């Protein structure tokens, strides 16, 4: 047995002991995230392994379910960030390129997890060290050298040459192969192999020279033939292409690369890299908005620069003036001038929904701007010209790993509506109870994620255990857990520091569009269940909380868990809907279901018993737009808590 990610070295005596220790002490980083694993009923944290929050501390990468296309690059970067020896365990994942082949594969079941981990331990103990361990490469990690003109950054060529505009020699700079930022050698151990990126770097340093090769990082208008100091601010001049290249590295780099959470290292690079070069590229916001115009701004600044500085008595004209350096830079709400950095969070960030990529522009530790994007957004519902009802229902449920029962029910209801079929009262009650069961599990899952994010570990562990117990439980199973769940809710309500943590965070006004618990936690709101006669007959009444902040949302979810327990008890049976038999019916129908995250509406068109058209509106589509509002001008920790309080499912977002 060999391990693809073995560490270099012969399996000597001590190494054998170390390998045995590694096999015992598994630290796992889970893709797409522990929440997805739990939704599939897998209890990772209860399997004698540690689930860690950063790939740097992991020695096993566990992939749960198929790897969505949008996460492949990020997964590659995450894997590259893990220190060797590193292993991959897949649970029900098919093709995981660009990752290397899984060391152990197992079906995504509890038994599969058990046997998979046992195999994994054997593999690690036997093959943690290898003399011929290869290097992991993936397109997302490759660094390419491209050539650009120092004066005309829009000129980018693959080969050296002269600038078509000004005739200057093009200078090399490193970049990632497909729009990803330069993050070459991060995962390279420092001892062996120097990274390709560093080679590029070195090469670049040598072939400087020529006219105007040196420039000031702060004052691009200062250009000099020889190294020296900037006459304006006294900083050392840098080679022109160096300044340029890093400005770019930042801009491209941080726009879009998918590396997860891995991004510490890369983000880092972006973060300080930008910092680093003092180039105004560092100030992410401005860069975003004005791109190269930033330089024009400096020209203006240069215009009045020069002599006016001497105006302050006792200070030499060349003294670096903060007033001048920060002129035209964006200012924070408190009027302080600070460096702005752009930091990527996700798609595998612990404490944020898996698959969500949140890019925060930080001003100190205050969020000056944010952008949320789903990397696992849903594709077209109807795959091909037409689908059978069964395929359609299965596809929709599989697309939503965090709420498969609700979406299955939705699909069945819409198809029944289109085919004018009536499942009968009993079936309706059973379905309603199945959706309520999923609501309990989903809200408990949210509590577990919140507990993890805010360091409330008791809550995380308890909610996780209860979520796993509730999932797939029958009516007696739910009744058996009801007491424990209610006790948990009481405990959450009375936990200390809760108000301090969540109160007045992520407040949402009554007129902003919102869906689900986010909507109902602000005093008004709607619930699709309020119009469902089956649920009304079971005693449903809409839960509402005042406040509109993260605390109100937490409490509302607790209320809903308690209510769902009552509804399930009243329904008396739980039944996940069967695919309706539609034969060759044609017609159109729509259904709305209150999923755990809010109302989802599906409209389908049947032709001869086949689904030909479908249209879905999901709650996360609505709520993801709130991210910008709830994070604006918040401290980083509060901003993350705010995003988490929305309980987004990136899978629901339109891709």
């Amino acid at each position, binding site marked *: 047995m060999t391990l693809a990610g073995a560490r270099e070295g012969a399996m000597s005596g001590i190494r054998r002991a170390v390998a045995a220790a590694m096999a015992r002490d598994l630290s796992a980083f889970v893709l797409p995230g522990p929440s997805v694993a739990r939704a599939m009923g897998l209890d990772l944290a209860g399997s004698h392994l540690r689930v860690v929050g950063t790939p740097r501390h992991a020695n096993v990468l566990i992939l749960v379910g198929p790897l969505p296309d949008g996460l492949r690059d990020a997964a590659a970067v995450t894997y590259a960030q893990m220190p060797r020896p590193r292993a991959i365990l897949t649970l029900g994942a098919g093709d995981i390129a660009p990752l290397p082949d899984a060391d152990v594969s197992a079906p995504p079941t509890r038994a599969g997890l058990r046997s998979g981990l046992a195999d994994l331990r054997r593999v690690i103990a036997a093959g943690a060290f290898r003399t011929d361990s290869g290097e992991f490469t993936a397109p997302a990690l490759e660094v390419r050298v491209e050539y650009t003109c120092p004066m005309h950054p829009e000129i980018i060529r693959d080969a050296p040459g002269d600038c078509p505009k000004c005739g200057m020699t093009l200078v090399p700079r490193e970049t990632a192969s497909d729009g990803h930022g330069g993050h070459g050698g991060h995962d390279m151990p420092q001892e062996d192999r120097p990274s390709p990126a560093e080679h590029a770097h070195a090469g670049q340093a040598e072939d400087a020279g020529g006219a105007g090769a040196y420039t000031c*990082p702060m004052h691009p208008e200062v250009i000099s033939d020889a190294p020296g100091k900037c006459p304006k601010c006294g900083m*050392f001049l840098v080679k022109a292409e160096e300044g340029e290249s890093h400005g770019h590295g930042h801009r491209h780099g941080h726009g879009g690369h998918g590396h997860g959470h891995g991004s510490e290292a890369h983000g880092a690079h972006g973060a300080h*890299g930008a910092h*680093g*070069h*003092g180039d105004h590229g560092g100030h992410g916001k401005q860069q975003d908005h004005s791109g190269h115009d930033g330089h024009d701004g400096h020209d203006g600044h240069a215009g009045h620069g020069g002599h006016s500085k001497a105006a302050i008595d006792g200070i030499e004209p060349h003294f670096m003036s903060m007033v001048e350096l920060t002129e035209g830079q964006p200012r924070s709400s408190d009027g*302080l001038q600070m*460096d702005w950095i752009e930091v990527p969070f996700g798609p595998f960030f612990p404490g944020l929904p898996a698959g969500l990529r949140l890019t925060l522009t930080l001003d100190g530790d205050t969020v000056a701007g944010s952008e949320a994007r789903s990397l696992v957004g849903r594709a077209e519902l109807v795959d091909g010209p037409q689908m059978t009802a069964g395929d359609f229902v299965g596809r929709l449920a599989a697309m939503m790993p965090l709420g498969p029962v609700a979406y299955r029910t939705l699909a069945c209801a819409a198809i029944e509506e289109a085919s004018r079929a009536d499942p009968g009262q009993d079936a309706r009650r059973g379905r309603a109870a199945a959706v309520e069961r999923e609501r309990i599990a989903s809200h408990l899952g949210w509590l577990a994620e919140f507990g993890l994010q805010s360091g409330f570990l008791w809550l995380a562990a308890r909610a996780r255990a209860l979520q796993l117990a509730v999932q797939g439980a029958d009516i007696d199973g739910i009744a058996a857990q009801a007491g424990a769940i209610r006790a948990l809710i009481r405990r959450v309500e009375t936990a200390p520091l809760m108000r301090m943590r969540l109160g007045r965070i992520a407040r949402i006004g009554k007129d902003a569009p919102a869906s689900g618990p986010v909507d109902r936690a602000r005093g008004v709101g709607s619930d699709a269940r309020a119009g469902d006669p089956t649920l009304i007959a079971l005693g449903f009444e809409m839960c509402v909380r005042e406040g509109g902040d993260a605390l109100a949302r937490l409490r509302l979810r607790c209320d809903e868990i308690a209510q769902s327990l009552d509804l399930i008890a009243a329904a008396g049976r739980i039944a996940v809907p069967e695919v309706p038999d539609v034969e060759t019916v044609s017609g159109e129908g729509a259904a709305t279901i209150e999923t755990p995250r809010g109302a989802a509406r599906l409209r389908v068109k049947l032709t001869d018993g086949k689904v030909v058209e479908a249209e879905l509106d999901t709650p996360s589509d609505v709520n993801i737009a709130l991210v910008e509002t709830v994070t604006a001008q918040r401290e980083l920790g509060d901003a993350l808590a705010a995003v988490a309080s929305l309980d987004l499912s990136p899978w629901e977002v339109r891709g």
Partner: protein
Amino acid sequence: MTVQMIFLAFFGGAAVWFGVVVFRTHSMVRSALALLFSQTAIGAMFLVMQAEFLGVLQIMMMATEMSVMAIFMVMFMMDPGGMGKMDMTHQKRLSLWAGGIGLLAALLLVWLPDWSPVALSVPGAHEQAADLGRELLGRSMFIFQSAGLTILTAMIAATMVAIVPNAEQGK
């Protein structure tokens, strides 16, 4: 005595060397921390000279002060993260003069006054701490209390001045 002298010289040299690093490095944070270690070395010199309380106090206070300074430098100078090759020397002519005069003053202070003979034995550390307390709460009480009050006033005033009156903040 000689061992003491060797250590004193060592820490003295370290203090000077870290002082030089403050200006030779190109990173704000390194510069601030070099200053911290320079001050720590001075604290160690106090310890070598058996001024225990003073030495420990110096070592403690400087850690926090220099860290606070570091964050302010990074925040406001937009330190190019240590990689901006920022020059730590400014106003060269003025600093040369100031440094030269300072050196001269220090040398004069060393050579001119009539320093009393080297104390061969110092009071024990317990006694020193007690003496220091009596001094602070006795003869020098007024000076220290007024200095403390002045610093407090200055801090509050500086904070007040720094806060931009902002209509939005009032809400």
